[in-house]
């Protein structure tokens, strides 16, 4: 039963550009990109309990890195560009994260909030590189001789990368790192007492999360085609948090579901701009009050009946 559902899902994902209009292919790409961010953020917040309000900063670093590399070093194939985007984001993330991780809890969260805004401001001020407030046009991604122009080509790129990264995240649980994450989630004290080097694993989670978000940022740059620093603001970071809370902390399929709902809601409410924060805020509050485990736990409950 589940295999058929999974199979139908895969077919739908692959066949999507053949049945859907241009705009819906674009939307699907966005859903997948946000899905990668959500999975990455979930690695940090869902497993090691470090809430981040600054992931828009990582997203921005990845996006601008990919855009600038494609602009100035067009010869690089897109997988290298994306890897570079992810790597640079991870490096920046760790440079910032390592000293801040020992703060823990509330301080870390507010530090990430400050980080996100500082990144956006820095990108704005580096206007000789990023064109600052006027924004940057992102050239099409190149894969060897092929230029990935058009929504369909970009969709398949996003799909391929998303599939790889989500599969990796789902499998992390099976590795030693994953088991350590789960142990930390259950009880940090017990994990520490059992010999798990908590600090080291928290750092790893932070770096991995930054890497995922950076790669997603790079994909985002190609999908959207235009970047400006003011779009990577606190409200975007909050959107990412809503995705994982709604999806359910600690669940990879939950994060994907949360990303899908938030992205589609965001687009669907475009005509009702003024109600958007109301809906998203309401979703957060309702989730925390009535459905703390998010979609993931709600579905698990239903399946067991």
């Amino acid at each position, binding site marked *: *039963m589940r295999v*058929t*559902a999974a199979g*139908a*899902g895969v077919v*739908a994902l692959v066949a999507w550009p053949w*049945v*859907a*209009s*241009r*705009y*819906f292919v*674009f939307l699907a790409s966005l859903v997948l990109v946000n899905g990668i961010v959500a999975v990455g953020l979930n690695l940090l917040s869902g497993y090691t309990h470090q809430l981040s309000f600054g992931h828009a900063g990582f997203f921005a670093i990845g996006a601008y890195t990919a855009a600038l590399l494609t602009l100035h070093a067009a010869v690089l194939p897109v997988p290298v560009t994306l890897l570079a985007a992810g790597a640079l984001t991870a490096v920046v993330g760790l440079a910032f994260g390592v000293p801040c991780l020992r703060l823990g809890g509330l301080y870390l969260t507010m530090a990430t909030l400050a980080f996100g805004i500082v990144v956006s401001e820095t990108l*704005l001020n580096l*206007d000789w590189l990023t064109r*600052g*407030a*006027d*924004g940057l*046009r992102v050239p099409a991604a190149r894969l060897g001789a092929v230029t990935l122009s058009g929504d369909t080509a970009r969709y398949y790129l996003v799909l391929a990368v998303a599939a790889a990264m989500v599969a990796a995240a789902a499998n992390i649980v099976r590795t030693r790192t994953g088991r350590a994450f789960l142990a930390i989630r259950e009880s940090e004290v017990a994990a520490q007492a059992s010999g798990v080097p908590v600090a080291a694993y928290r750092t790893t989670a932070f770096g991995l999360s930054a890497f995922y978000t950076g790669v997603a940022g790079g994909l985002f740059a190609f999908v*959207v*085609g*235009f*970047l*400006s620093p*003011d*779009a990577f603001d606190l409200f975007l970071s909050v959107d990412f948090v809503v995705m994982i809370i709604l999806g359910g902390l600690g669940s990879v399929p939950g994060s994907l579901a949360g990303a899908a709902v938030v992205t589609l809601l965001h*687009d669907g409410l*475009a*005509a009702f*701009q*003024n109600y958007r924060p109301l809906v998203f805020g309401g979703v957060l509050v309702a989730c925390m009050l009535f459905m703390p485990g998010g979609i993931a736990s709600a579905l698990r409950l239903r399946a067991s009946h």
Partner: protein
Amino acid sequence: MRVFLASLVAVLAVVAAQPALAEQGVSDTEIVLGCSNSFSGPLAFTGEQATRYGVDLYLKVVNDGGGIHGRKVRTVYYDDGYKPQEAVANTRKLVEQDKIFAVIAPQGTAPVAATLDYLEENRVPLLFPFQGSPITRGKKYVFSGMTLYDRQARMMVDYLAGTRKFRTFATLYQDDEYGKAFLTAFEKEFARHGSKMVAAEAVKRGATDVSAQIAKLQAARPQATFLVLTPGPGAQALKEREKIGWTDTVMVSAGPLTDERYLGLAGDAAEGVEGLSLWPDPLVSDLPGVRTYRDAMQKYFSKNEPNRYSLSGYFAAMLFTEAARRAGKTLTRDGFATALESVKSFESGILPPVSIGPDHETQKQGFWVRVEKGRFKPLTDWLKSE
């Protein structure tokens, strides 16, 4: 499983049900227009006024009168909060999902500039944007709405340096294409008059505090200080200069800023301020077109006070309607563009007669104003920008 398949089918049904149209945005019963504009952020007021109380105001009158060749005009707007990236995403949605015929009256130099490439690739007309950067020149489907910044700069400098003999100037400008376009244009005009820019300070888009910039500008002692800003920081500049007692300069607002709106925010600090106005006083002017505009506003939105922003949107819709009528019953984008280019000496009753040529510029004029008792009073007739 069933839920999953059902939702999949539903989504496919929605996606597949896209009606085919002769020209995008034109059906037998309606024409669809739209834009990405500011409904939040630094330009929330001006955006709301230009669209809902400007374009829509005129279109209400048109639709009530039967429409254009029997078609009603419908508008779709999305909020970009003055952010270029959002403007691009919104414009995409308008073109690909809402299937608009043309973009009308979007706002903001940086956001509009960001959408230019996309609109050109997809051959979507960009009509009368509320911005004046010269980068919109020379594009087949783009028709400017506001007097372009280089023309505005020429009028401002010709008047102050030429007629009033000012020698030293400073500029407080927004740190993006809007401010920089003016800055470049000013420098060029100063060279022609032998005047100097003694100081220039940048203000980040969206910033609210300008105290440091005003302090630095005061130290340079300019005779006139140009304000190339949005209403919020513009008002802050006036308040700040009053606070520090900087009286020996004339504050001059650039075209987009010159409206009672930012004066209202500045309160008492607004006395004696001057500027280049692109529109006649919407509340007081006796011109026939402006009176009709006021009557329409009274009829449909009686609580809304007339202002230059809604007047500019109203005018944009008026120009659109005129061109669409000339283009005839078969409305195509190419036909529409040709019809617009053919507009000669069009009497709007608001601005001097409009003649649009191959340069696609619909407005080329402005006049000088000074604040007296909270309202801008004209000091000159329409100035020339050639």
